[in-house]
């Protein structure tokens, strides 16, 4: 009997160690995936599906000594483009407001602390390997990130086994249902991308560039300072990862953005000073898997936006307090 018990315990320990190794390898693959997305040249077509809506998008990404340039073009429906460079995001809409340009004072997303962020996510997700499948004719390994609570969504990520580029991403609710999917149907990697491929096609007669509406960005960074706003409730593991202040190009209103993240999911909170009477979101709204919550406090529009469940943005938004002078 004692030998049987020893065998069972030993077998369990071996299984646990295999599991730990698999989790570690999945985390390492996830880390490599984040780095490759910034360093690799690629040109491909992917679909974005949410609900019963399907959109095909071409993406061209180039990385070199000058940094990153990325261009996304919608292939069905109304022609739209987004061009992202090191310090600028340009959204081109052919109807109405033609061009919207946003400067990015802090640069591209989380530029330097990706590995640390992912490490911090381990406590709030169970990271493991899933199935091996073909995506866009590439052999991929699925990585599954299952959240520990219902304040964040889960992820299924299919990563190219040869070069670690993410080829498919599913966002999952607590029931395992897919809220939205991004999936490459074809992609070429490691190729030279000419400058011309990164220029917008919709110029000249096809559209007018409305630079006066948004200007050559009157947005300008102001020094980061102590915020007058306090978020008194956050999901476990969410921390303030960045904060920036700038002026809105159109009306000069100052906007403070605070970004909170647990390493995988992130939520932005915008505090926009009211410059004139405008309408604002009161309560909840959603678009695809993104949820938003809005309210007005101390002559500011408060908006919470993120790819997290509605309960999360609602609860964060309702916990905001103003610490400045009344």
């Amino acid at each position, binding site marked *: 009997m004692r030998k049987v018990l020893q065998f069972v315990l030993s077998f369990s320990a071996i299984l646990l160690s295999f599991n730990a190794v698999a989790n570690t390898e999945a985390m390492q693959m996830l880390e490599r995936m*984040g780095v490759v997305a910034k360093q690799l040249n690629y040109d491909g077509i992917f679909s974005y599906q949410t609900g019963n809506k399907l959109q095909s998008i071409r993406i061209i990404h180039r990385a070199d000594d000058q940094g990153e340039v990325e261009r996304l073009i919608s292939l069905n429906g109304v022609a739209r483009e987004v061009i992202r460079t090191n310090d600028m995001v340009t959204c081109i809409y052919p109807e109405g407001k033609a061009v919207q340009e946003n400067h990015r004072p802090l640069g591209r997303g989380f530029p330097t602390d990706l590995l640390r962020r992912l490490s911090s996510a381990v406590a709030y997700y169970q990271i493991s390997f899933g199935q091996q499948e073909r995506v866009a004719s590439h052999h991929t390994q699925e990585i599954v990130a299952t959240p520990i609570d219902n304040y964040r969504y889960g992820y299924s990520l299919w990563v190219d086994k040869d070069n670690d580029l993410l080829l498919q*991403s599913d966002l999952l609710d607590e029931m395992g249902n897919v809220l939205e999917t991004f999936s490459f149907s074809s992609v070429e990697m490691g190729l030279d991308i000419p400058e011309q491929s990164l220029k917008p096609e919709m110029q000249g007669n096809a559209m007018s560039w409305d630079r006066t509406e948004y200007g050559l960005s009157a947005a300008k960074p102001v020094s980061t300072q102590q915020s007058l706003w306090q978020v008194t409730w956050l999901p476990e593991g969410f921390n303030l990862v960045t904060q920036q202040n700038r002026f809105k190009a159109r009306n000069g209103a100052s906007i403070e953005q605070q970004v909170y993240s647990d390493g995988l999911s992130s939520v932005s909170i915008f505090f926009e000073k009211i410059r*004139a009477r405008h309408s604002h979101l009161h309560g909840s709204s959603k678009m695809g898997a*993104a949820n938003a919550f809005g309210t007005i406090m101390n002559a500011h529009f408060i908006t919470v936006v993120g*790819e997290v469940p509605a309960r999360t943005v609602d609860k964060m938004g309702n916990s905001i307090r103003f610490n400045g002078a009344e």
Partner: protein
Amino acid sequence: MTVNQNELLSALVDGELQGKELDDVLQLLNTNEQARRQLQRYQRTSDVLHDHGVSHHHIDLTDRISATLDDEVEFTTSSKNTAQIIAFPRQFWKQAASLAVAASIGALAVIGVMTQPQNQLVQVPQVASVEIETTPMIVATTGKRWTVEEQEVEERLNSYLVDHNEYAGASGVFSYARVVSYDMGQ
């Protein structure tokens, strides 16, 4: 506070100021605490007049109930579910738990009493179970457009979404797909 200053603050709330007047009133707000308080009073009045009552300034029992329910642990299932042949729907359990919580904070005590016997009667029969594979499916969501009425609000949310996308998602590869997919033509 002079009459003129009060008029300027009122005009600021109404969005009627431009140029020097706007600069003057902003300068006033930066230096005068009484002016800031007056502006808040005007803002609240304006919100009420425009049916934009600020929820933080009144006691709303539904908020407390909602917040309490949010803290409740929800029943979750893994990708491999054990399906019982005779089982009550998940929604039933959620409702039962919700009503119990509501009763616990004293808001709906009568319903709590009514619910009690029902909860005791609910017994999931111990029957044979079968293991089924669940296939992930795309659930219906609101599509590629914010669920708001006014274009101005929609534009502001879109602008925020662009800024947020710098930090969104696990990979960075698909960050701006939502922006380029936005269904403006509907």
